[in-house]
């Protein structure tokens, strides 16, 4: 393939940098643009929220840059702005992530601000209440948003009783109960070197980075104390749940169990998903639901490889009068892939796309740092960039048919619908 040289050269450019006390990072050194991008991740995320206090991880992530060390919130933001430093944290279901982007000439200040946010966030009363109010407003804002409602209901039902069933961003009931002590307890439990993965791309050399790593991350405790999260399979598969909302369109979310990223069939499953609904202009769902029948503007599917309950999922928004028809087309495409697998032509096109488009994932420093961190979190190895296209290329029609059957099984889905769908 044309891009083999690209990915190979990228993989060989990854340097493993180790600080004096053993903090490791993957570095791609590049001086084309005078900036540095860093992405870090630690295991945990919202699935480690206390059971009665969903939203704790998201709340903490929003507070880390609201005052740290000698700087209160105002002084901290002034300083970020003075140096045009971009710094932020976020929580997904399985991880806490941090991003940093700085001009190379402000490297020293930028890494220091990141160190403060990570280790010495003050969690002062004023920003706690302010961020609580912001998060509450954001929940209210999406309270009656059809896509958000369909998604919330899907997870609440499919993962009832499991941490994944609790909303990552918390609830209007949980947010008021989260205290400063809860935030500190979460940080103490989760922030640790043990699960830390770091990637850096840009205008910095390995020796300088090794020193910065020690300064920023060296004071973190060695071990995290993660609560055990049981593996879960989604409930209610084979059923539909309709939530009434007075709108002209029905928002539909569907899904069932998927495969772990570490599963030997995961790459093949990605190819199969691409054929079903991953490709923008070429997937089966796009052709059948949108192009042929004009039933929806957006229709897609994806693999959501959560660590403790992987899924295949998808969604669309379609007029109430034809919602039942749209859903039945989606179900029949899934069933047909499960029983017959893809044909040679669509498999060939999907493989070519996934192979050829791989370099587009690395075309900015920020995206590249994100990809490198993802590869570390999933233990894919530094040579993954060299191996990955070979794995896709090796997928045969028999593999794809077998994995489609494994992934979609009897084709049953759990479906949530928000709107006033007719005939369901």
């Amino acid at each position, binding site marked *: 393939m044309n891009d083999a040289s690209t990915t190979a050269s990228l993989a060989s450019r990854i340097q493993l940098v180790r600080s004096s006390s053993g903090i490791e990072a993957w570095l791609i050194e590049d001086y084309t643009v005078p*900036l540095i991008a860093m992405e870090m991740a630690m295991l945990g995320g919202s699935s480690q929220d206390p059971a009665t206090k969903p939203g704790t991880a998201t709340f903490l992530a929003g507070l880390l840059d609201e005052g740290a060390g000698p700087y209160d919130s105002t002084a901290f933001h002034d300083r970020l702005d003075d140096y045009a430093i971009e710094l932020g944290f976020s929580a997904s279901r399985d991880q806490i992530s941090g991003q940093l982007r700085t001009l190379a000439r402000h490297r020293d200040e930028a890494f220091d601000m990141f160190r403060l946010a990570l280790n010495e966030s003050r969690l002062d009363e*004023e920003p706690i209440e302010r961020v609580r109010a912001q998060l509450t407003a954001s929940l*209210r804002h999406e309270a009656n948003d059809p896509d958000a409602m369909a998604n919330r209901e899907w997870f609440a039902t499919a993962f009832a009783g499991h941490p994944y069933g609790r909303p990552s961003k918390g609830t209007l009931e949980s947010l008021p109960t989260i205290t400063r002590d809860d935030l500190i307890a979460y940080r103490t439990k989760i922030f640790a070197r043990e699960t830390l993965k770091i990637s850096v791309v840009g205008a910095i050399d390995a020796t300088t980075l090794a020193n910065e790593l020690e300064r920023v991350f060296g004071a973190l405790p060695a071990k995290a104390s993660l609560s055990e999260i049981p593996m879960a399979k989604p409930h209610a598969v084979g059923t539909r749940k309709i939530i009434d909302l007075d709108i002209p369109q029905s928002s539909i979310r569907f899904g069932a169990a998927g495969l772990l990223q570490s599963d030997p069939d995961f790459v093949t499953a990605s190819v199969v998903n691409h054929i079903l609904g991953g490709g923008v202009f070429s997937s089966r769902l796009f052709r059948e639901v949108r192009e042929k029948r004009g039933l929806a*503007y957006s229709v897609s599917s994806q693999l959501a490889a959560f660590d403790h309950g992987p899924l295949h999922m998808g969604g669309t928004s379609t007029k109430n009068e034809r919602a039942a028809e749209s859903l039945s087309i989606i179900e029949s495409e899934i069933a047909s892939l499960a029983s017959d697998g893809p044909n040679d032509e669509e498999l060939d096109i999907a493989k070519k796309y996934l192979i050829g488009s791989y370099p587009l994932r690395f075309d900015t420093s920020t995206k590249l740092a994100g990809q490198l961190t993802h590869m570390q979190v999933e233990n894919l190895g530094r040579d993954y960039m060299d191996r990955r296209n070979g794995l896709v290329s090796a997928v045969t029609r028999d593999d794809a048919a077998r994995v489609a059957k494994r992934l979609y099984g009897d084709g049953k889905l759990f479906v949530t619908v928000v709107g006033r769908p007719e005939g369901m």
Partner: protein
Amino acid sequence: MTTEPHSHKGPDIAHVTLHNGLEIVVIPDHRTPVVTHMVWYRNGSADDPVGKSGIAHFLEHLMFKGTDKHPQGEFSDVVTALGGQENAFTSYDYTAYFQRVSREHLKTMMEFEADRMTGLVLSDDVVNPERDVVIEERRMRTDTDPSAQLGESLASTLFTHHPYGKPIIGFMHEIEGLNREDALAYYRRFYTPENAILVVAGDVTETEVVRLAEDTYGRIPARGQKPERQRPREPDARAARRVVLADPKVEQPSVQLAWVVPSYKTAEKGEAEALEILVQILSAHGTGRLHRKLVMDQKIAVAAGAWYQSTAVDRSRLMLYALPHPDGTLEALEEAIENVLTDIVQHGVEDHELRRAKTRLIADTVYAQDSQSSLARMYGSALATGSSLKDVTDWPDAIDAVTADDVKQVTQKWLNRRHVVSGYLLKDEAA
């Protein structure tokens, strides 16, 4: 063919015009062997004929329906099989199509894109389902979302005469009436080499791009003259207006304040840059005046910000917004936002605020160099709205030249409370 070289702190940008009038911009980025290939047409929703709102956007969808040479689906299948990504977008002033592929496939993209500049074939069999797709798109974006509905009313109140007041996607009753003939008439009027700008960013050289473009786009005959944009001018506003939308689905109210302001194209020297700095001073993350005053000091808002559509052919819009605390009213919030502006008009802005805003905006141009698709969009949108390449490359200097007094002056001149249009989003408690 004419060539004018440009150089600045970033990449060396080349700007060439082919004999048929097609403008070409080449932005080198040799970090990965990938190119971003974009064609921009200097027409957008503001050029929709009266009664045909949404036609620019509808045609953008229909441009994927194939030609005599390459029937429906072939272009997209080829892009996919080459591992490329593609899409298109329509704005008020332009419509653009792009693909991102490995560098050696650039010519293939050019062949297909040049082919559909004049070769589009449409039948009712493809036009009719696609109209339904656009109707679902409008339902998804607007008709299920009260805040988007308020946004449409706010725009049509702000622009009483100029087409920036109409939604890009079109009004539902007019989308429903759009047909094949409307699309083709609009297509023939605007899709010409004289009206297009080719932007190629990535692992390419000027010589190579021009050679490939001559061989593809260069074969399209010139139409003779550029299509004219025919737009009425928005009269100066005389009144303050308030638009209120109450819906039972609204759980989080908000207030917006909007004004008609100059764009880079229409502004007197330095005014657009001063407005850009003003917006930065008002709304920078964590440091903006709206955040500091309304959220942190007065605690009457949970979030506040500002937005300026500076890249536009005609006079454009600037908006401030805030989300109230649960116990606050929108009237009080509107008053507090006005007071933030009054303070700037009376006392100006601080030197450190000005310095910070400049640092941030100029740093953004360095960050933009990290993304070839951002650069391609930056140059494409500037040229498509009548700015020159030099305007873009000189922009950091123009920003640096803004004074505290300039910021005060533009605030006083353009953000006058006597002409404000405010938008209130409320929960309909009665329903």
